[in-house]
């Protein structure tokens, strides 16, 4: 079912002044699939998502490359066209529903307005539709709750309201930026189930931005790992998390204590993520990497590795035969091992 992808990002670069937040980023998401973009703070994962939605201020941001949503080019799109795209074909859910909902208006009014912005319908019809989507995202007694204000909802319910508002026009592309980070685990599980259900039901393309590899494992078909503004590894979730090829992905796995077992000791990545104003030379990860000597000469310090790979998994690393290194040196440290094997 690999038709033309609904969302295609090609060589995307996002720069604020002389700071490059995103460099040469490419990926594609077909309808009915979920891509997770993983990275730590400053990795550029949110800046890249905002570029997809055309949400950067053109006065302060320089964007090059191409982003197509359903065939339409978003980079350089006129503001009126962008507004027509956002909220209808493409919608975004933010981390903090508290700040994304207007406190002075009822949720019914806010959802109905989002519907009427893209559809010529009566207030009454819009209200009925709003009740409908609230019900669809699992808010009990949806019709009655239309007249409630955001503060009258709990954190989990507010996130459902946000998702309802994003879905009101049946978008073909849904981008969720850390949709569950602010929520408790039992509520997080409900929201992840909801996003998975919606993707199945409507066949939309979904992009989830997260720092949590557990969330990735539960929800994503494909994963893209970002470091210092670049994709360092991407591919099917089972491949990337089960047998990762990039030392940064290894480091993330070694840093996470899992619920299922007690590891003897975590092996953290040393140092901190680089400052985007002063990125390291060569491979941006080399100052924190364990393997530059293994590569020999000064390749890691001098040259940015290409994104290469076999089949549908790509990785950006100079290390030869990373699969062997992973199996021999990394896997034994990940608890019982079979946890992460394909």
């Amino acid at each position, binding site marked *: 079912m690999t038709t033309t992808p609904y969302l295609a990002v090609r060589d995307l670069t996002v720069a604020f002044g002389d700071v490059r937040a995103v460099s040469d980023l490419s990926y594609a998401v077909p309808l009915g699939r979920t891509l997770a973009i993983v990275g730590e703070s400053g990795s550029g994962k949110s800046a890249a998502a905002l570029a997809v939605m055309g949400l950067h201020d053109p006065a302060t941001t320089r964007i090059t490359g191409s982003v197509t949503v359903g065939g339409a080019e978003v980079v350089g799109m006129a503001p009126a066209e962008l507004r027509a795209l956002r909220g209808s074909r493409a919608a975004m859910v933010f981390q903090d529903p508290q700040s994304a909902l207007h406190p002075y208006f009822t949720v019914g009014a806010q959802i109905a307005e989002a519907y009427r912005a893209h559809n010529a319908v009566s207030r009454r019809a819009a209200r009925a539709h709003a009740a409908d989507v609230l019900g669809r995202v699992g808010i009990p007694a949806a019709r009655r709750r239309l007249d409630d204000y955001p503060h009258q909802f709990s954190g989990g*319910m507010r996130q459902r309201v946000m998702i309802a508002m994003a879905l009101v026009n049946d978008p073909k592309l849904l981008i969720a930026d850390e949709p569950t980070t602010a929520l408790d685990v039992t509520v997080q599980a409900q929201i992840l189930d909801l996003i998975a259900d919606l993707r199945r039901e409507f066949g939309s393309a979904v992009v989830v931005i997260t720092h949590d590899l557990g969330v990735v494992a*539960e929800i994503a078909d494909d994963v893209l790992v970002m470091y210092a503004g670049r994709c360092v590894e991407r591919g099917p979730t089972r491949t990337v998390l089960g047998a990762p090829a990039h030392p940064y992905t290894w480091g993330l796995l070694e840093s996470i*204590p899992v619920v299922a077992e007690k590891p003897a000791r*975590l092996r953290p990545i040393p140092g901190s993520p680089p400052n985007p104003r002063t990125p390291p030379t060569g491979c941006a990860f080399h100052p924190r990497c364990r393997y530059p000597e293994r590569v020999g000469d000064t390749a890691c310090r001098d040259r940015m590795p290409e994104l290469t790979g076999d089949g549908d998994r790509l990785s950006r690393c100079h290390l030869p035969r990373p699969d062997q290194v992973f199996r021999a040196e990394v896997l034994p440290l990940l608890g019982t091992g079979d946890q992460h094997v394909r």
Partner: protein
Amino acid sequence: MSDELLRVEDVVKHFGPRRERVRAVDGVSLELAEGQTLGLVGESGCGKSTLGRLVTRLLAPTSGRIHYRGTDIARLTERRLRPFRSDIQMVFQDPYLSLNPRHTVGAIIGAAVARSGERETRTRVRELLEVVGLDADHVDRYPHEFSGGQRQRVGIARALATRPRLIVADEPVSALDVSIQAQIMNLLQDLRREFGIAVLFVAHDLGVVRYFCDRVTVMYLGKVVETGTAQEIYTRPRHPYTQALLSAAPDLSVVRTGTPRPRIRLTGDVPSPVDPPSGCRFRTRCWKADDLCAVEEPALTGTDEHVAACHHA
């Protein structure tokens, strides 16, 4: 319990006026031995952070007793508390908010070092910076010159400055990036082993708690629902809430099995602590609840290794 360090007995903390009283902590008991680590887990509003602040006596309890090495500190005046303040230290969640931005880290940590000459204090501060893995020459820098992970190290150095026996760590890694979280957890692990410090570890991340803690207490709406050794709680959880919590935690194991684990789906949200349900407080979200649960509050029952408060466990 042998070499008991802390024994919290039936502690209650209510906030607000009578009509809208928030029962943040509503009759909690727990014990901690010298050098031991106890994880305090539960969702927002369960009272775990309030309990941590009661143990450090940043808050005074409404009622109940807090025995620290044999002395009940629940009601002590500020002056009498002073010797205990250096014994019981706290590490906070947000390394950005918990350090005064106008003071150098030398001044911040130095203020906590026991009174002595300026030179001795400075030597001790440099030593503490090295203990937590920072460069001793950064003693005159300000908090904003450090990254989030480094700031949390400063917070830990400040806590260590008084040579405490007990550290209450309230979500000490949840504001940090994944790669930095692991650094800080390993540091805490090393320090507690080296100095024999007991830790009350308040966290919502069940993986972090499993990694760090000998024993675990699970709270729900101001009550303890289950306590036991980490091994027992994680492999044989008895309370339905603990079972739901463990099954809801996103886990990498789906990568191996290819199919998501069976997940207990809790419906609804945590009820308001102003007006908690009668009987068992979890009953409104519990799939095992029956008439008994509405009328009778279950007591904690079980063995020394493992107790749970459920009529149906």
